[in-house]
């Protein structure tokens, strides 16, 4: 018999011992932990590449590296951060939190859950190995536009293609698992509109993943055959079209950016009510806004392509559709602000990260609106303004929420409390340095500095130096972050099952350090209502 948990007997499998625990595990918490550590190591590797980029850009002129190597750095930095750090980190948070939040013992398909994780180190390994191949790593930018990635790319591109296939398998399996878990493992007395927002946002994100990742797999498959088997999808000489690559890529790529931000919205919607000590304002509008954003994300892709010579009607459509996204996003921002309005606010570390998320993500949202205006984009396209924009939404948006979530739920994961004083120092260090790093890039972009260029005209020198100094400081902040987390795991003071007095949610009803399997018995209706975010 291979059953584990049962509600009526006490026989209960704890974790196995040693390395095999991590390789064989079917436990959502173990797998969540694996995801989070994997994402963190990828964050450090991707961050190290970014330090190389900023070092080269510290001063004008070619300082440290050949332009080709610089392009490898920008490409791999983007790929590693998107596919290796941000996405796995959110899947890790989902694994850890969703079963606890919906009153389930574990994920619906635990063995597949293990596989979704254990593909990642192989995919990441194949991707990183391209650095050591003849011709170097892919150097065509993380968007791998044809023909740069087909006709003119190094041999290592085929390894990159297969790595993307593997990452896609992993994401699709992870998404299927989350849908099955939320829809089938939820406590019988929890209705859909009782679900906490992190669960809602992840459910909707899963639909984005299942819709978008297979299209990415199709894109790289077409690249593979164009490169090796003589097809002409992206080659005008055979009647194909390089612009077609961009359409298919961005049909994946735009939902992808919401894949990286919707779970962040969920996290923030947990933290702000806790420290404002008020129910979340506009719960149902949050759910509908999330669903609207997800729907719109499928029909706006060509706003990344205003300069490809699309027909004007196409540009207008994609511009207006893009503007529409500001409406549900605005609903969310105002709901967060209204939640804080007249709340009994305190500013523990997770709240600091959450509030700065609202500020900084909104800056990234506004620069996105600027970029979404087709005539204006003619000026901004492919400049540092774009770089500043997507780093505001991905670093001070997605990554910010991941760090906020780490501090918020770390007590539940470890049963211990982190060092609040140090964590606040870390917050101020990070939030100041990240703005020194990315804010000047807006000015550089508006003044015309192109992205993906290792050298630049002299008039860009000052802002680049400021940005680089901010970058080094921001990079160093992760040393302190690592220390705080490790110190909490090892020496943190034991905490109670609900370390934040204003926190609501089923996860806080579990032991201070949550048990190996979350809920052996589904929680009652009374408990679900008492722990509801919005009543």
């Amino acid at each position, binding site marked *: 018999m291979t059953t584990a948990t049962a509600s009526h007997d006490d026989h209960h499998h704890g974790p196995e011992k040693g390395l095999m625990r991590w390789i064989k595990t079917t436990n959502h918490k173990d797998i969540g932990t694996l995801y989070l550590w994997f994402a963190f190591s990828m964050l450090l590797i991707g961050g190290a590449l970014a330090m190389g980029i900023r070092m080269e850009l510290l001063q004008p002129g070619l300082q440290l590296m050949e332009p080709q190597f610089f392009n490898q750095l920008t490409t791999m930095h983007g790929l590693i951060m998107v596919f290796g750090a941000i996405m796995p980190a959110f899947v890790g948070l989902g694994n850890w939190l969703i079963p606890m939040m919906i009153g389930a013992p574990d994920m619906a398909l635990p063995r597949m859950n293990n596989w979704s994780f254990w593909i990642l180190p*192989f995919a990441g390994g194949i991707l990183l190995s391209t650095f050591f191949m003849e011709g170097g790593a892919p150097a065509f930018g993380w968007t791998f536009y044809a023909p740069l990635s087909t006709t003119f790319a190094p041999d290592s591109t085929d390894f990159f293609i297969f790595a993307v296939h593997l990452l896609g398998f992993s994401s699709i399996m992870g998404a299927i698992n989350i849908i099955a878990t939320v829809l089938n493992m939820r406590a019988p007395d929890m209705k859909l509109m009782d679900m906490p927002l992190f669960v809602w946002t992840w459910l909707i994100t899963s639909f984005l993943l299942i819709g978008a990742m297979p299209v990415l797999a199709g894109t790289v498959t077409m690249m593979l055959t164009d490169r090796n088997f003589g*097809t002409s999808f992206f080659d005008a000489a055979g009647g*194909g079209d390089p612009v077609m690559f961009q359409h298919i890529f961005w049909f994946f790529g735009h939902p992808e950016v919401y894949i990286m931000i919707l779970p962040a919205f969920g996290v923030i919607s947990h933290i702000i009510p806790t420290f404002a000590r008020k129910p979340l304002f506009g719960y149902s509008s949050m759910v509908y806004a999330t669903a609207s954003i997800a729907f719109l994300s499928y029909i706006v892709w060509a706003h990344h392509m205003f300069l490809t010579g699309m027909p004007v009607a196409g540009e207008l459509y994609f511009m207006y559709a893009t503007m529409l996204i500001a409406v549900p996003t605005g609903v969310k921002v105002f709901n967060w602000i209204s939640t804080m309005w007249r709340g009994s606010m305190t500013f523990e570390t997770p709240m600091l990260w959450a509030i700065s998320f609202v500020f900084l993500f909104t800056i990234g949202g506004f620069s996105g609106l600027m970029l979404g205006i087709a005539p204006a984009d003619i000026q901004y396209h492919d400049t540092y303004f774009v770089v500043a924009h997507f780093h505001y939404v991905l670093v001070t948006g997605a990554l910010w929420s991941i760090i906020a979530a780490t501090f918020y739920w770390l007590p539940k994961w470890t049963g211990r409390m982190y060092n609040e004083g140090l964590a606040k120092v870390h917050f101020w260090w990070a939030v100041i340095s990240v703005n020194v790093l990315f804010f000047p890039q807006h000015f550089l972009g508006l003044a015309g500095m192109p992205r993906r260029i290792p050298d630049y005209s002299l008039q860009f020198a000052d802002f680049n130096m400021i940005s680089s100094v901010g970058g080094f400081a921001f990079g160093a902040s992760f040393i302190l972050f690592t220390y705080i987390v490790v110190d909490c795991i090892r020496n943190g003071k034991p905490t109670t099952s609900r370390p934040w007095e204003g926190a609501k949610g089923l996860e806080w009803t579990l032991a201070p350090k949550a048990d190996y399997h979350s809920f052996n018995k589904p929680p009652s209706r009374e408990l679900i209502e008492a722990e509801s975010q919005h009543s």
Partner: protein
Amino acid sequence: MNEEEYYVPEGTYWPIIGSIGVSTLFVGFANQMHGAEWGGSVMALGFAITVFMMFGWFGQVVNESTSGIYNKQVDRSFRWGMSWFIFSEVMFFAAFFGALFYARQLSVPWLGGADNNIFTPDLWNAFSASWHQMAFLAPGSVTDTALQSGTVMSFPVVPASGIETATPAMVVNPWGLPALNTALLLASGVTLTYAHHALRAGNRNQIVGWLVATIALGAAFLGFQIMEYGHAYQEGLKLTSGIYGSTFYMLTGFHGFHVTVGVIMLTVILYRVQKGHFNADNHFGFEGVAWYWHFVDVVWLGLFVFVYWL
């Protein structure tokens, strides 16, 4: 196991074996394409490991299922899992259909000067955009001199019968083998449904009969598809024949691959029926494969209409 208990399986080695298998397969494939002599053998090894994993993993699930460990909740999780897996497959095909529609409706006409594409007459003045003519792009007809002189577009090698009026029938006549294949696949959907009815009625001989018929129809489809590929290659329509050949072979090829997988899955189900794994109420393995088979069927209808007929 009773209905109030949750089921969580114990630790498993199969996923890590699967990761090793699939990565070995891909690394071997990439090296094979780059001319490494050992690429093929590594690929074969990776494939063997992957097949071993599938036997082991599915075998374990089958054993657990037949020993009655699963409850209704597990069954529902499998159903959600299979349906969204099939949806992800739909989106995979959508990428290739998207490429077909975009090339056919937008980029090829643009190459031919549609909308205000003022460059076309100067660059490729002998080129007229017609989707079915694109099928006759001669492989390798883009010469170095053509590239250097700026006349990049290779001209279709059009049969004498007419330049302006290339029709689907000039490429692959849809009312020959493709229509026959459509009939075969639609019929296989019907026979599979009969097998399902027989399963619910608990009549094993009938199930086996209808399943064998379904598998035979699927295999016949594949046979005709191979024949058709042979014809097409002899007539000069190849994977390398420009955008028409690319979309034609990638769409029909991936579909054929899915039919092959479907036939294998049906064969496994046939074996499991004979082993007595299913009963009238509990046969998700059968249903999952049936869903997959209908999905493959529907994709074919899309192919028949948009690739062969129109």
